[in-house]
């Protein structure tokens, strides 16, 4: 209980003091997780749209696989990416291990299945509604998918947020491929893990509170975009 109050006090002090290290960590967290979310959306949403609209052999198996991949443990993703990017691994020559780029790659792999699976769900409902109309208008596949993605954009924003939430909150993947290196790859979650391991629970909790505020700000920003585009009116 004491720790809670102390954590709150530290969190407020940290934020108000404009602590340089904290901001560095916060910005890196945002950069890594937002990049990963953007990349995962670029991969996952068209993939979800394909699965939602096209009928092909193996589609059912593909859907089951992607749904199952949603449950990938972050540390497993981290290990796979570590093995690939390790200097002795197949992609070692790029020298990406222990850089933010490696963390972006790992988080992208972690959340792309989530984005794809949820997008498929959202777009399939929309596709059922629009399909005959689009065929009536003689729309091609690509045009139809583009229209679906656009009309599903508000639901897809929530999908993106779900991916972002998982990315910003995970520690298992980034700590393995990023190494939690001070001033280079330390993000909010790995900093929290570090402070916990140092037994500085109040500081760890304070960082956790800052992380929650961060997630809140991102969600509120997206919510703002939705409302300004009149989501209610289009429901």
């Amino acid at each position, binding site marked *: 209980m004491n720790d809670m109050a102390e954590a709150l006090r530290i969190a407020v002090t940290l934020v108000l003091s404009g602590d340089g290290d904290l901001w560095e960590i916060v910005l890196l967290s945002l*950069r890594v997780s*937002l*990049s990963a979310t*953007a*990349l995962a*959306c*670029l991969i996952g*949403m068209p993939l979800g749209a394909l699965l939602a609209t096209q009928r092909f052999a193996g589609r059912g198996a593909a859907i089951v696989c992607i749904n199952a991949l949603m449950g990938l443990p972050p540390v497993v993703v981290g290990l796979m990416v570590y093995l690939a990017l*390790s*200097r*002795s*691994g197949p992609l*070692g020559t790029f*020298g990406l*291990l*222990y*850089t*933010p*780029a490696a963390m*972006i790659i790992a988080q992208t792999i972690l959340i792309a299945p989530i984005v794809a699976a949820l997008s498929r769900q959202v777009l399939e409902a929309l596709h059922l509604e629009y399909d005959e109309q689009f065929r009536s208008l003689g729309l091609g596949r690509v045009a139809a998918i583009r229209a679906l*993605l*656009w009309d599903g*954009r508000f639901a*897809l*924003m929530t999908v*993106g947020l779900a991916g972002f939430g998982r990315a910003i909150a995970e520690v298992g993947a980034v700590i393995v491929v990023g*190494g*939690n*290196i*001070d001033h*280079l790859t330390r993000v909010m979650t790995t900093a929290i893990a*570090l402070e*916990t*391991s*140092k*037994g*500085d*629970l*109040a*500081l760890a909790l304070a960082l956790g509170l800052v992380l929650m505020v961060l997630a809140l700000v991102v969600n509120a920003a997206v919510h703002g975009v939705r409302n300004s585009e009149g989501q209610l009116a289009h429901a």
Partner: protein
Amino acid sequence: MTFRALTLALALCCASATSADTPSILVQSTTSTANSGLYDNLLPRFTEATGIAVNVVAVGTGQAIRNAQNCDADVLLVHAKSAEEAFVAAGYGVSRQDLMYNDFVIVGPADDPAGVAGLTDAGAALSRIAEAEALFASRGDDSGTHKKERALWEGTGADPDAASGDWYRETGSGMGATLNAAVGMGAYTLTDRATWLSFGNKGDVAVLVEHDPALFNQYGVILVSPDRCPDVKEEDGMAFIDWLTGRDGQSAIAEFTIDGTQVFFPNAPE
């Protein structure tokens, strides 16, 4: 949406180019040195003297050695002498040098159910803990500390593995997480003194057993072999090792204190 996402991704990815302009080396290290704050003290001095930045990945000794075997390090700084020697013998490292030492201590709940307080024989203390079936938290992660703990059990004749999950609790985690678990459960555990001193969540756990020569904890430093790993920054890595084992590094280690207590004792050969 897609277009905006694309632009955002590109912008962020382009911005992610790391500071490749300043030379830097990668050190795989044990958590105890990192968590104690030793590096915060040493590294700025080294960087100031040489212009080389040092990136430290702090993991358990076992994992640090494995990462170095994968060539994901220029320098290895750990505390498990026989594993380090095996690492060098297998050709992964160039040569191992003693760097510094400190000691392990057995910490445990203040009410001390096994009655080990004040003992200076770690083996005897572990025997009593096993006899009393008092909770003992083990790292269980193949770290340097874990290896030391296993070696201590060897000498007692007790078989903690038979009690695994009962009174012998293997956390499979780092020293900090294991200490948090020990504090939470009221268990005994083996920890290096530096981590213990800088640990912030001691609860009612205290140092009970210390000053046994068997608790000696030697740290070594190794350059990863450039023959085996062509990407190793041999020159910069060697500069770091030379600095650490030289006069400046050794005195910096000696000057580092936690709450006024010296925690690492330099002992690199002249």
